[in-house]
């Protein structure tokens, strides 16, 4: 890789430990992927925030960086293991809360914005077509590349932090024009009509195509929220963060038809839903907001919960700025009066809730994968209406 004189100095340790370690990470990655140089990025999203995932070792690493380290571009954070204000409502223990707060303090000392959301693009950090960023939340990486036409690789936590400190990322992968050309054409032959359907589409493409850029035809009825769920799902199940959609995404029109073709039909959709819907109708947890809920979703949720009462633990999760809007519009009161919790800064995937719940109802295909492994839950996937009807009834409504 060609490094500038300043970059060489950082690598040699002349700018302190944090810059040197960051340059080691960036050049190490650059060499693996044949990058010719480092390029500037305008924002960074850092994953590796929940103390549940970082542990004491991760916390020590962050604390080791902060004396000499400061981020040099706008840097945002992924969700933490708890609502930073209302962690007691979530029944999080104080010992965990203290460690989680130490992690947040370490990031704050580095100059990172404590946004704690997987949806930076919903709270004012919306890169333009062609803009280079370094984000490491995979659902946000998918939204940035696919829906916005911005450019970022799927960064790891430490590599995103390194990019934040140096202000640059190695020029490889989805930063390059030639890597954004679709290799596989996906013909969608089934009607994709709601959020779980979009999640199932992501599952199918992830499993069938794997990590190749696609050109998809046959998708209609798209909304930002449905595309948000699609992106989260496709990268969870092995797909590329870049999925061009004819008539939907900004870069789709400029590409020719790829030679390799696959079809997604009823059969593939059924396999997706079979995976995400465990047998039975028992339910002890409902969680909506994976990725974090938009204000439009909170409006629908509030309307559905107004004057009702939930019989099982229900968490609606969103980002703090969106909650502020919801407070103003009265949605928060409607939601909380039903007995459900409206939480920020966290989610059911990264919160330490293993063993607390057996079966969760969700709209999120991504959640169906992660909660099984980490928090050992069974899953049921459905629309917002279906999930909330189930929360009120006390069992899964078919």
């Amino acid at each position, binding site marked *: 890789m060609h490094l500038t004189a300043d970059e060489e100095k950082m690598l040699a340790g002349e700018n302190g430990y944090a810059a040197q370690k960051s340059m*080691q990470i960036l050049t190490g990655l650059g060499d693996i992927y044949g990058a010719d140089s480092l390029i500037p990025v305008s924002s960074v999203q850092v*994953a590796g925030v929940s103390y549940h995932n970082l542990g004491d070792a991760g916390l020590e690493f962050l604390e080791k960086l902060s004396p000499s380290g400061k981020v040099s571009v706008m840097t945002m954070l992924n969700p933490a293991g708890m609502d930073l204000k209302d962690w007691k409502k979530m029944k999080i223990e104080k010992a965990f809360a203290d460690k989680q707060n130490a992690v947040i303090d370490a990031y704050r000392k580095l100059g990172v914005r404590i946004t704690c959301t997987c949806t930076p693009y919903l709270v004012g950090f919306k890169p333009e077509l062609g803009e280079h960023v370094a984000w490491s939340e995979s659902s946000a990486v998918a939204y940035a590349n696919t829906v916005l036409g911005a450019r970022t690789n799927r*960064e790891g936590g430490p*590599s995103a932090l390194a990019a934040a400190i140096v202000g640059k990322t190695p020029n490889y992968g989805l930063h390059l024009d030639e890597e954004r050309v679709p290799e596989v054409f996906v013909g969608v032959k089934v009607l994709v009509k709601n959020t779980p359907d979009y999640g199932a589409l992501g599952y199918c493409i992830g499993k069938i195509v794997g990590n190749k850029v696609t050109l998809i035809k046959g998708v209609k009825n798209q909304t930002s929220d449905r595309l948000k769920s699609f992106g989260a799902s496709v990268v969870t199940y092995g797909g590329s963060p870049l999925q061009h959609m004819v008539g939907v995404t900004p870069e789709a029109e400029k590409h020719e038809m790829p030679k390799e073709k696959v079809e997604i039909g009823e059969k593939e959709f059924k396999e997706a839903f079979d995976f995400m819907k465990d047998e039975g109708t028992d339910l002890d947890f409902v969680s909506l907001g994976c990725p974090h809920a938009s204000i439009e979703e909170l409006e629908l949720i509030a309307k559905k919960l107004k004057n009702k009462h939930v019989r099982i633990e229900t968490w609606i999760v969103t980002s703090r700025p969106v909650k502020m809007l919801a407070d103003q519009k009265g949605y928060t009161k409607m939601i909380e009066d039903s007995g459900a919790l409206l939480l920020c800064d966290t989610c059911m995937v990264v919160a330490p809730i293993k063993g607390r719940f057996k079966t969760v109802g969700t709209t999120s295909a991504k959640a169906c994968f992660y909660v099984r492994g980490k928090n050992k839950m069974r899953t049921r996937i459905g629309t917002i209406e279906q999930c909330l009807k189930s929360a009120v009834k006390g069992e899964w409504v078919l």
Partner: protein
Amino acid sequence: MKGRVVFKGSAEGEALVSKQAISFYGGVDDNGVVVAKDHDLEGKDITGKVLVFTTGTGSTVGSWSLYRLKKTGHAPAALVCEEAETVVAVGAIVAEIPMVDKIDISQIKNGQKVKVDGDTVE
């Protein structure tokens, strides 16, 4: 054998060889024992070994997992693989574990004494 340096360092130990990909997040426990179901190293302890494998896989949290193993004294002495990918590479760099890739791992036997020095594996 000469490969490519992912993290430069020097270490030696007994080789523990896998013909499969390794996921550190969820695949190896806090004591360095491989817990991934049906993995050819399932039940084996990687602490202090020269871990030889094909490539890394799994969540990017795996970089942090490798760092945790190093800090708690349960990390491998060195990492030798066919093809590095970001999760294990970044993990090796933050944990400062000598790592080399582009190695023909079929040439290394389980239990063999292996020394890793920069880009050289012998």
